[in-house]
């Protein structure tokens, strides 16, 4: 499961730009993963310039603000 650490996020949209599934929603200073669309491909995690997205093997998800 892909997890976003919203307190670290800069809301730059790099992850949205590489997501093949349109599974990330960014609205000014608010970001969330649309879980029904996410395939856990990890491309957003690799592309995040500041390590805000993590792939969490334990399936723990940090709640978005």
């Amino acid at each position, binding site marked *: 499961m892909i997890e976003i650490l919203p307190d670290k996020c*800069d809301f730059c949209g790099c992850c949205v730009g590489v997501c093949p599934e349109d599974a990330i929603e960014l609205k000014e200073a608010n970001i969330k993963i649309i879980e029904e669309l996410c395939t856990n491909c990890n491309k957003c995690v*690799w592309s995040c*310039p*500041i390590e805000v997205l993590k792939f969490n093997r334990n399936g723990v998800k940090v709640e978005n603000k």
Partner: protein
Amino acid sequence: MKNQYDIIVVGAGPSGSMAARFAAEKGVSVLMLEKDRDVGYPVRCGEAVSEAGITEFIEIDKRWISTEINNFSFIAPDKSEVILPLPDRGYILERKIFDYALAESAAKAGAEIQTRAYVYDLIFDGNNVSGVKVEIGGEQKEIKAKIVIAADGVESRVGRWGGLKTYTDFREMESGVQVTASNIPVNQNTIYFYFGEKVAPEGYLWVFPKGNNLANIGLGVSGMIGKKKSALVYLNEFMEEHYPDAPILTRVAGGIPCTVTLDRIVTDGLMLVGDAARQINPLSGGGIASGMIGGSIAGKVAGEAIKKNDLSYIYQYEKDWNNRLGKRHKTFDNIKNGIFHFSDDKFNSIAKSILKVPIEKRTLGNIFKIALFNNPSLLLDVAKVFFQK
């Protein structure tokens, strides 16, 4: 604000503002929507442009110029530095003010502007895009338009909703991070580029002076690199080594789609411009000037389509863009792919060869010769840049 416009532009960056302005100049009704509170903020950009790239659209105004740039410095992995005089004058902008000025020019041409307006979906009439669903101050509403122009940046989703493939392969997305730091004592008329495995593999690091020893220092690395080590870690290491005590005034992240323009940037009732269309120079990662060109062409064509009462005319934009810059970007992309895989040894040997040339003879042509001597397979691509119309 009305419930219906001829053209709605989503996003008020440079390409959105140019689209809105050039459309409005055709005498049609235009509404430009910006999701953030302010036009021009936050700035996610190194802010470098060439003079030729912007004077087509706006007269140079000191209010949005930080510094004038005359030299280009290339720093090889072994730290040898090559200084080149720039063929054209360049500027480091104050994007906040620059973007404002561009939006103002759209307003002057007759476009309406609404900030804090988040477009969350499109409306359709059959298969045609016929407007947007937008949230303004917490209130959701539908606004109709004959043509929607999506200038919603690297994070564009409007194109996807219209059925266009807009995401960028993660290997071609440069993950960028930049600080604006003070106490950076570099020449204020020189832009610096660092290359190499250690500093910014499959990308480069830039130092762009903003006057009074303030500078934008940033880098981009491809997603392939980010898989192992993030852009942020690379930047922190660089700052630690070069400017450990420099106060950081701002830090921003951003994605730079260093790739060719999307295959399709038009569909019925919808046009994409700027970063949303991937109208970036894939070699430099610069997108201000090319985005403005894309926006202006789209605005003109959209305005004409309304005037002609022939909405199928908007497909002309795709052709006009490809002839103006799209084809050239394909060649730049090939050159980029060559350079990004240069080894440190190759960068070092190129620097060494250039340093043998006296500075007054270091023209771009000579540099290319040297770079090509080191990597002949690039010759074909470079030849294309110079010989194509």
